[in-house]
């Protein structure tokens, strides 16, 4: 894991720490972190992350907003819930990382992250059809890497797709969808409105 690089002008912004405590699900217990490292030690991808959860939690408390939101730690969480269960201070680490991912996208820290692009593809399917179409999400995601890479990755996965179709685990018609898509969209739009109204997305401002 690398040292923490200086981010933008404001390296340490304690408003950000307070904002996370108050607004991110699970953040209320974050001040109790005693840096024991149980989370990073339990993380299946802990060694494949820039900071790992333990260090990231300390960085949040130090108010290192830019470094936290630009970190790849939040994008490599597999949501295995090891850290959530094992934390001796009952800090819901998984939940905090999920919350930070949303903030990082909203504030433009993560436009090119694979997870962010994958999530965009996923959300497209959910909002348009009400259901996840695995074909669509995967294809959207591959082509979000660029046209050439999209073709390459699609071709590379063609044998798997063929076996999935043959095994009746991938269908060939139009996407499955909910009947009342208008209802679903109205609910989602309203939820976005409520979030904006209650200003939960203004991290550390």
């Amino acid at each position, binding site marked *: 894991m690398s040292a923490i690089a200086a981010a933008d002008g404001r390296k340490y912004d304690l408003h950000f720490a307070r904002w996370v405590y108050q607004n991110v699900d699970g953040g209320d217990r974050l001040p109790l972190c005693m840096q024991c490292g149980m989370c990073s030690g339990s993380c299946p991808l802990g060694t494949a992350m820039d900071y790992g959860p333990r260090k990231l939690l300390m960085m949040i408390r130090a108010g290192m907003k830019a470094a936290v939101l630009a970190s790849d730690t939040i994008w490599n969480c597999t*949501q295995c819930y*090891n850290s959530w269960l094992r934390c001796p201070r009952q800090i819901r680490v998984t939940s905090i990382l999920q919350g930070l991912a949303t903030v990082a996208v909203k504030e433009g820290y993560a436009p090119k992250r*694979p997870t962010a692009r994958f999530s965009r593809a996923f959300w497209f399917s959910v909002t348009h059809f*009400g259901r996840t179409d695995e*074909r669509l999400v995967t294809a959207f995601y591959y082509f979000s890497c660029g046209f050439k890479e999209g073709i390459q990755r699609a071709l590379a996965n063609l044998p798997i797709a063929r076996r999935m179709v043959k095994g*009746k685990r*991938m269908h060939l018609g139009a996407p499955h969808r909910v009947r009342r898509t208008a209802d679903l969209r109205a*609910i989602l*739009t309203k939820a976005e409105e409520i979030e904006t109204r*209650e200003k939960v997305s203004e991290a550390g401002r």
Partner: protein
Amino acid sequence: MSASKKYTYYPGCSSLGSATHLDRSLRAVAPKLGIELKEIDDWNCCGASVGHVEGGALPQTVLSGRNLAKARQQGANDVITACAACYLNTHGVNEKINNDVRTKRRVNEALGAADLSYDGDLKVRHACEVLVNDVGMDKLKEQVTNPLTGLKVAGYVGCQTVRPFAATAGGGNYDTCDQPQFLDNFIKACGAEALDYDPKTSCCGGSVSVYSPDKTLPLIKKIVEPAVDAGADVIATPCPLCQQNVEMYQDAINKKFGTNFNIPVVFYSQLMAVAFGMDANRDAALDRNMIKPLKLAELAKKGGA
């Protein structure tokens, strides 16, 4: 057989895609176990493990809110789902609506946009918890007419089926989160041999496997290798994403690590369908596994439908 119990069933998106074999085999064995499934009308996606990233926390939450409101319209029966992610989201949101007045108010304000509401009075349960707590191993064994004698099974539970709720009151207190026994008990009840298998709750990489398989192939290898080393004929799992990751990436692992893995990965419900003497394809959906569970299919033929 004693009277059956009605449940409102949330199949989830994978039931129409990568995990049609879980849905099919579960629907096949359910009536034999006294489980009556009635699907939530017009259910939608739960948001899985990535919806919140683009959609935001509350939009992700109201996805489950809508499903719960629709389920409640159909009655007060417990909601049952077999997918780990569907369970995690639906159960998690249900608990939040019950424990947090702010969430309840916000979810209901959003649901109001489609004239729906939900006040949190349903129970959301994982299919495996229902099998343990409502059905029980004795009733499961009673249905076994074609014991899977000689079949060596590595029981791979994965993370999200038991985490973080299995050992909580709301989650039905049916097992531990680190050393779950329920899957081995299912395997044994079906007459198969449950191998001593260490990485029971190792992580398959979840959705990170979709976009960064480079990072997660070593994780999946740690799941496959001990099963092969222990002489398993098949790996069994309850989770749709685990099934898909552990099955689909074996070729890539072989390419990357010079291994030669080709071990089938099935759902517990597929084992049950075969052990209950049901049809190998129509009920157990064995034809839907990418790596064919040949030994299990042979056992099915002997049993006859």
